[in-house]
């Protein structure tokens, strides 16, 4: 058990490190060093940076020194909580990102819960009532979920809502709450707006998990231990829920570990279509404006969040599977 956790933790650290290298590469890739870009950016907007200030910045980030020293300086500052300054907004990156990172997390988490909550019962139903009308219906919905990329789905829903109902369905808040400080009413407003984007985000993962759950459960339903349970005189539903479902839950849970990265990824793209105040639109804007500190920080933050989410999934998996808990070596 300790072994499993250590392995997963190490893997998580490794992943974070790889993501940090990639994020650093994203910051470094544009031609010229970013102080040049910074100076040019400020000059374009009318204010100027003195040569001294520029030199100080270069020294701060070790520009001109070998690349691994630059990386080292950059990552040390990140670890101490200094994500640098956004060139476009001319404010600290942490300030620019602000609530948006929590909104990303909230949206992805809501989609995760929804994926579980839908895929589990539907998968069970489809396997137990194989080839029933409901099974076919869910299979069809599942194929739509797999075939329609989530940004297209968002576009189609946006258009339908506008055309048929005359509604504009974007955003996570009504206009009057968007900039307002947090209050109970604002939370209620959020709860009202959250379901639609969460469903759109959850659909493709749900479709995949339903297929996995159905296939696994169909496999498990044929196993001898199910006959044992029936021979004990358990009712059919109790038999199914206690034994084969429990066993089918396992591959289901291990797939969940890879679901969270998908949801974080997906949240970026549907946020742009639906105009959600997550880090997605910010990232795309920053990338297009070559605001590399902001972009690199967002990529890094999303990566770290993903790793934490995945680690939590692993802990859930361990809790679900006694074989992992009792591993001897």
């Amino acid at each position, binding site marked *: 058990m300790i072994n499993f956790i250590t392995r997963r933790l190490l893997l998580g650290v490794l992943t974070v490190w790889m993501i940090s290298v990639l994020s650093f590469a994203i910051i470094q890739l544009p031609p010229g060093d970013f102080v040049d870009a910074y100076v040019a950016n400020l000059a374009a907007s009318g204010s100027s940076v003195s040569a001294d200030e520029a030199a100080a910045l270069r020294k701060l980030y070790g520009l001109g020194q070998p690349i691994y020293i630059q990386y080292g300086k950059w990552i040390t500052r990140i670890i101490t909580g200094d994500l640098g300054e956004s060139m476009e907004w001319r404010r600290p990156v942490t300030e620019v990102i602000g609530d948006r990172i929590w909104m990303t997390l909230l949206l992805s988490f809501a989609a995760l819960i929804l994926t579980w909550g839908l895929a589990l019962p539907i998968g069970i139903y489809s396997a137990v009532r194989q080839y029933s009308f409901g099974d076919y219906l869910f299979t069809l919905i599942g194929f739509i979920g797999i075939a329609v990329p989530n940004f297209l789905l968002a576009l189609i829903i946006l258009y339908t809502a506008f055309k048929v109902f005359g509604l504009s369905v974007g955003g996570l808040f009504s206009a009057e709450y968007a900039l307002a400080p947090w209050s109970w009413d604002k939370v209620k407003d959020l709860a009202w707006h959250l379901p639609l984007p969460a469903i759109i985000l959850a659909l493709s993962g749900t479709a995949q998990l339903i297929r996995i759950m159905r296939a696994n459960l169909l496999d498990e339903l*044929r*196993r*001898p*231990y199910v*006959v*044992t*349970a*029936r*021979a*004990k*005189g*358990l*009712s059919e539903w109790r038999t199914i829920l*206690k*034994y084969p479902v*429990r*066993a089918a839950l396992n591959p289901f849970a291990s797939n969940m570990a890879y679901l969270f990265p998908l949801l974080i990824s997906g949240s970026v793209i549907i946020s742009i279509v639906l105009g959600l105040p997550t880090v997605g639109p910010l990232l795309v804007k920053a990338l297009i404006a070559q605001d590399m500190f902001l972009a690199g920080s967002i990529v890094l933050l999303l990566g770290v969040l993903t790793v934490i989410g995945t680690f939590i999934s692993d802990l859930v998996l361990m809790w679900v*599977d*006694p*074989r992992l808990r*009792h591993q001897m070596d």
Partner: protein
Amino acid sequence: MAETPILSVRNLHTEFAAPEGTVHAVDGVSFDVFKGRTLGVVGESGCGKSVTARSILGIVERPGRVTGGEILLQPADGGTPVDLLKMSPWDMRAVRGPEIALVFQEPMASFSQYYTIGNQIMEGIRLHMGLSAKAARARAIDLLDMVGVPQPARRVDEYPFQLSGGLRQRVMIAMALSCDPRVLIADEPTTALDVTTQAQILDLLRELQQKRGLAIILITHDMGVIAEMAHDVAVMYLGRAVETGAVKDIFAAPQHPYTRALLRSIPTVMAKPRTRLPTIEGSIPQPFNRPVGCAYHPRCTEAVFAACRTEPPPEVGVAGRNVRCYLHGGLPGARA
């Protein structure tokens, strides 16, 4: 044998609908099981032994279903026998466990790996006997002790994958006995075990039978196990019992050509070295192309009558047992 049987299977039919056609997995099986005695059901794989066991408990899986016959269970208080096939699913659940219990071939696959063995034993106890969790646990530990599991109080909290094959089968038997059944169906209980463990498990079954007066249906393909354990024998071939009778009669003077062939194919230590072991010619026919007439006739060395190829032989009484073979009578038009 004036005693009434606890369980009496009469002309049982179970079919499986497949796209290629209907498979008659059990095709008119009849036998009786008595208190304190063991009925050995023997036959090659695929002859319908296991399906018969599942049919008795009413847990044949789709697309299979019982299509005819009677399964009469003598109530514990000695009233008139009830037909299990006519019971409601609800009442049937109360039969599984407290009346008839099942022990399976693969003890590993027959347990869920996700619950402790205690949990899986206690489940039936709590459901049927209505005991509290604490009392059920105590009973589970007693049962484990009874079947010879060492340190039962510790083992009760272990998972099946932590036990050896022999121990798992003992736990399986403990679980089957948890609600004091009167009939125990053991479906190839020792096939997956090594020879020494096999002997221990068979000893355990015999001991439990003597103590509790259990009626046991022992399903196996191993004539050696039959010789050691059974009081009565039913020899099955392609869904039918071709010969039923007392074990000593059948071993001493087998009447059906198939029984004779089965007995000839047992290797013995007494045989002359380097002699070929006789085998039964051919193999079991495809379930979809069951031979017309006596199902055994294509492999039979004694199929002399035209009727062997046209009509299945009826059951006739010969020398204290029932045989389905024209050699022993029942030829169409012979007696009429």
